[in-house]
């Protein structure tokens, strides 16, 4: 593969005007985020010639936004899609199909909470939904139960609690976080109600209304824009299965492949990374992902996050926005990993700002632990 490291830059990021409980349509959330991200980038909609999204088609989105792109991508493989779009933007821009890509997300996950009827003819609806395999918590809980069986229930429970509590502490520092003003102790965690055993409520991500967007362009163009460019150093993707019952190893995600590939493309190692943005649909997702990415060995996740190592002040900076667990999670959360990564690298995150981070690894997980996208971002 051609060396495409540092061949494009992210130059604008933003949420929709408000996130949390917002009575707006999906497309309005897309549009607000797009407007705000272009403003952040110092660009106009007329500069955009690549359009990417997940969850709706770019023909609906492009019409709503009033843009006629020369390159479109509606890749929808779950919440990881918006990380994977970065890899696709690298390819499209380098191939010359477009030079400025707008990627948007908008989902009224809270206001439109009804679940799909799940009465189709595919494998999931046909063989899983009749048994109540509906929605992410139940599927991920079954994977987590297998992991507990392999690596010990007590220590895995503690590892899940560590992630939930540490992530909440970051949210308490983020003015936009849903749980900004709601602290959580270990007792709060252990005393909370069950959603699907082994998951307590705080093992599960939020359900919010939120939009987000980012803009990708060439380094040449980025140099003339107001914000410091955040370069894409490495990007990789892949998927393993669709429905959970087809997943061969419930404790290893495709990050096992996309993680090393992205790091190799970036020419860096785990030890070089200053911030890790790990898709935290569930506390368990974090443990399985850290291991799959190679930060630690299989089964070592609970030790890796022990003693609030990922909390503010800890020596492994992770999910500094407060994550899907405590900041926002509209349904396909991956977009928001990118926003925080770019802002941390630019030094724009106020009270929760890390000390001069240069390299950030993002890993998105979509579906039922089905798909992953890993990206390494850097700033000069």
């Amino acid at each position: 593969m051609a060396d495409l490291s540092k061949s494009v830059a992210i130059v604008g990021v933003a949420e929709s005007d408000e996130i949390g409980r917002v009575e707006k349509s999906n497309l309005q959330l897309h549009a607000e985020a797009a407007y705000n991200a272009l403003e952040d980038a110092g660009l106009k909609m007329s500069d955009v010639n690549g359009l990417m999204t997940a969850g709706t088609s770019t023909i609906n989105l492009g019409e709503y936004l009033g843009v006629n792109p020369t390159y479109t991508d509606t890749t929808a493989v779950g919440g990881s899609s918006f990380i994977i779009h970065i890899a696709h933007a690298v390819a499209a821009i380098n191939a010359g199909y477009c030079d400025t890509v707008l990627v948007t997300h908008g989902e009224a996950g809270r206001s439109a909470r009804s679940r799909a009827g799940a009465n189709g003819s595919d494998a999931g609806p046909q063989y899983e939904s009749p048994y109540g395999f509906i929605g992410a918590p139940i599927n991920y809980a079954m994977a987590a139960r297998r992991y507990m069986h392999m690596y010990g229930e007590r220590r895995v429970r503690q590892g899940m609690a560590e992630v939930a509590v540490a992530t909440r502490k970051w949210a308490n520092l983020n003015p936009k976080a849903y749980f900004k003003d709601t602290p959580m102790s270990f007792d709060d965690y252990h005393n909370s109600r069950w959603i699907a055993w082994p998951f307590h409520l705080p093992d599960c991500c939020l359900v919010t209304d939120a939009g987000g967007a980012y803009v990708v362009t060439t380094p040449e163009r980025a140099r003339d824009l107001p914000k410091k460019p955040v370069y894409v150093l490495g990007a990789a993707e892949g998927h393993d299965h669709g429905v959970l019952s087809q997943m061969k190893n419930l404790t290893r995600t495709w990050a096992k492949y996309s993680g090393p590939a992205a790091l190799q493309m970036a020419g860096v190692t785990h030890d070089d990374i200053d911030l890790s943005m790990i898709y935290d649909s569930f506390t368990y997702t974090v443990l399985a992902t850290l291991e799959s990415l190679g930060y630690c060995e299989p089964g070592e996740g609970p030790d890796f996050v022990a003693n609030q190592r990922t909390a503010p002040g800890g020596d492994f900076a992770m999910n500094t926005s407060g994550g899907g667990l405590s900041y926002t999670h509209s349904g396909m959360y991956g977009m928001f990993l990118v926003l925080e990564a770019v802002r941390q690298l630019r030094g724009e995150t106020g009270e929760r700002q890390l000390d001069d981070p240069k390299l950030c690894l993002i890993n998105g997980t979509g579906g039922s632990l089905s798909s992953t996208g890993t990206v390494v971002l850097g700033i000069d």
Partner: protein
Amino acid sequence: MTQAYNKPLPTPQVESDMYWQKAKEHELWLRYDNDAQQYYFYPRDISPITFSRNTEWRQVSGKATLYTYAIVHRPPHPGFVDDVPFVTALVELDEGPIMPTNIVMEDPTPEKLVIGMPLEVVFEDVTDEISLPKFKPA
């Protein structure tokens, strides 16, 4: 008054008609890959193991072990409101494949659900057309 069954139902397809027809007869049949000499789940005419067309239907024993599970406390769909807590599970059939199902059990707890415990299939006739294979402790 009996309430209408309001959980999601499978919509059998050409390549799964046999599976659901046999389930209605309270038998469990899977697709077998003659080249790989392995069963696979879910049924499709062309094997996902070898991408071979040399496959056929075979009846399996209905014996399995518990691979993993969740005890569902928050109903994921209106049809399950009266069922919580209930158990979703993946079971490993004696013939090899893993399949999604429910474990039929009163008042499920983690103590009663031991990974690896032996199970056997039972069939629940949920409509005139559909019977769902579920599993209970053997």
